């Protein structure tokens, strides 16, 4: 902070100006009195008149000098300095963070300029620190993305070899097999499929946890088609366990918007769960229907199984990550407890809802609800009402 004592600040300068002006005025007044003295002493005015002349003269001259000084000198200079500071403010706001205001006024405006400079310096430093941190975060995210891509490739490639050759063996493409060899291969195939599911869950989970805006795109699609496709994929497994799998769906269903791959994963996980916990000879129904949730229109998928069921107090927690109803479940049925938590995650990010109903030992029903596309009110799509009807496709 510059030593204000040197020039004393605005107040001091004003006081000095006034004092000087008054002094000058007095001198001028006295000089005028001296000059006019012969004229004044002739008349009857006398001493009083002399004093009056001095005072009036002094006052008039002082006023003139003060106003001139204040107007042009002090106020003008003050306005100018304040302008300079304002310019500085504007430039900093426009992004020129290295802008500084140098004033030499020796008064409060100079102090203000210095304070402004210090503040701007601090601001500049903070912003630079933030930028650096942001760059680091960006790099870190990129490392994560690369890692996920790499890991998924490293896991999926060996699985492809396993799955592929086992299928060839199983179908007799590589020569005839004895009964025991056939059995062994079936076991291997089942386990490769299991492994595959877990890998897909992990990959999906790690992809979802990326906060980087590399999110997969969404598009409208037909849930009935998706569910039918998933059912087809599971046909082999359900037949092996002699479980009757059926799909119930209407002819027409509104489309839903979202990431088809993710929703497929969610449905697969629900069905996988049902198949896993339904004993041989049981039944699973995949039902799709139009359904409102609150005041939103949407589509509901029901996965109904005749399996071992879920105890009432566990119904909410089944969707927690790594949760399994009880430790013996893991031994009997395997799994990592990721499947349902992933379903939850996926459905929530699609603004949908998932829940379960069950009676212990009396089978379970899992519900997956998604908002339909026209109800979603896609802001970019202005003609959503007009296109509403054309969107309804037959299943």
């Amino acid at each position, binding site marked *: 902070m510059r030593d204000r004592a040197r020039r004393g600040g605005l107040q001091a300068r004003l006081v000095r100006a006034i004092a000087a002006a008054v002094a000058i005025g007095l001198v001028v007044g006295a000089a005028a009195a001296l000059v006019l003295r012969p004229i004044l002493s002739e008349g009857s005015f006398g001493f009083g008149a002399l004093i009056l002349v001095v005072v009036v003269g002094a006052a008039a001259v002082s006023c003139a000098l003060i106003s001139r000084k204040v107007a042009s000198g002090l106020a003008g200079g003050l306005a100018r300095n304040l302008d300079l500071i304002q310019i500085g403010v504007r430039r900093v706001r426009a992004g020129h963070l290295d802008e500084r205001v140098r004033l030499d006024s020796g008064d409060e405006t100079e102090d203000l300029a210095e304070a402004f400079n210090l503040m701007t310096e601090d601001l500049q430093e903070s912003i630079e620190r933030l930028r650096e941190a942001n760059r680091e975060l960006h790099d870190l995210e990129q490392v994560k993305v690369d890692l996920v891509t790499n890991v*998924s490739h490293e896991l999926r490639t060996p699985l492809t*070899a396993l799955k592929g050759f086992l299928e060839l063996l199983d179908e007799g493409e590589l020569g005839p097999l004895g009964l025991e060899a056939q059995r062994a291969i079936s076991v291997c195939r089942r386990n490769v499929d299991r492994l595959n599911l877990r890998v897909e869950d992990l990959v999906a989970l790690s992809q979802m946890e990326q906060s980087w805006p590399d999110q997969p795109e969404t598009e409208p699609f037909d849930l009935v088609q998706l569910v039918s496709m998933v059912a087809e994929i599971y046909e082999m497994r359900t037949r092996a366990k002699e479980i009757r799998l059926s799909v119930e769906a209407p002819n027409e269903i509104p489309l839903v918007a979202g990431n088809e*791959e993710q929703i497929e994963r969610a449905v697969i996980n629900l069905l996988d769960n049902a198949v896993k916990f339904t004993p041989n000879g049981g039944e699973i129904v995949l039902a799709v229907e139009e359904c409102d949730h609150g005041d939103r229109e949407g589509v509901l998928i029901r996965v109904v199984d005749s399996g071992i069921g879920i105890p009432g107090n566990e119904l909410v927690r089944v969707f927690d990550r790594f949760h399994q109803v009880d430790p013996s479940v893991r031994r009997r049925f395997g799994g990592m407890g990721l499947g349902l938590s992933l379903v939850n995650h996926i459905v929530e990010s699609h603004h949908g809802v998932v829940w379960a109903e069950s009676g212990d030992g009396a089978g379970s029903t899992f519900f997956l609800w998604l908002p339909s596309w026209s109800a979603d009110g896609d802001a970019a799509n202005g003609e959503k009402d007009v296109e509403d009807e054309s969107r309804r496709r037959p299943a």
Partner: protein
Amino acid sequence: MKRIYIVDDEPDMVELLATVLKGEGFEVETYTDGRAALARVLDEPPELLLLDLMMPDLDGFELLKLLRLDARGREVVVLVVSARTGHRAQLETLQLGANAYIYKPFSPRELVAQVRQLLAERGGSQGD
């Protein structure tokens, strides 16, 4: 007999794909190096190219780009086989000129069906 070239840096992948396709009656050539594969394709184009994306040195994207830039490579049917899911990789390869995309892990049956369909669309008898 229809010729299919297989490009994948993983030898086990190459072996699997070769086994499957030879079993279906195709004439098969295999490459684990992108550059060698590209040179061969441009020299004597196959009916179909099975292309992996994640390869060191010349990766699938680059190979595809260079392939389509060359007049000799434009007619080759390209089926991309990759572990990379997500629409971005798929979209990019299709934009670069691939004809189709199949995800790993796939079932050999699916692969053969895809190959036959692509060749049929291109015209000509199936499988020879």
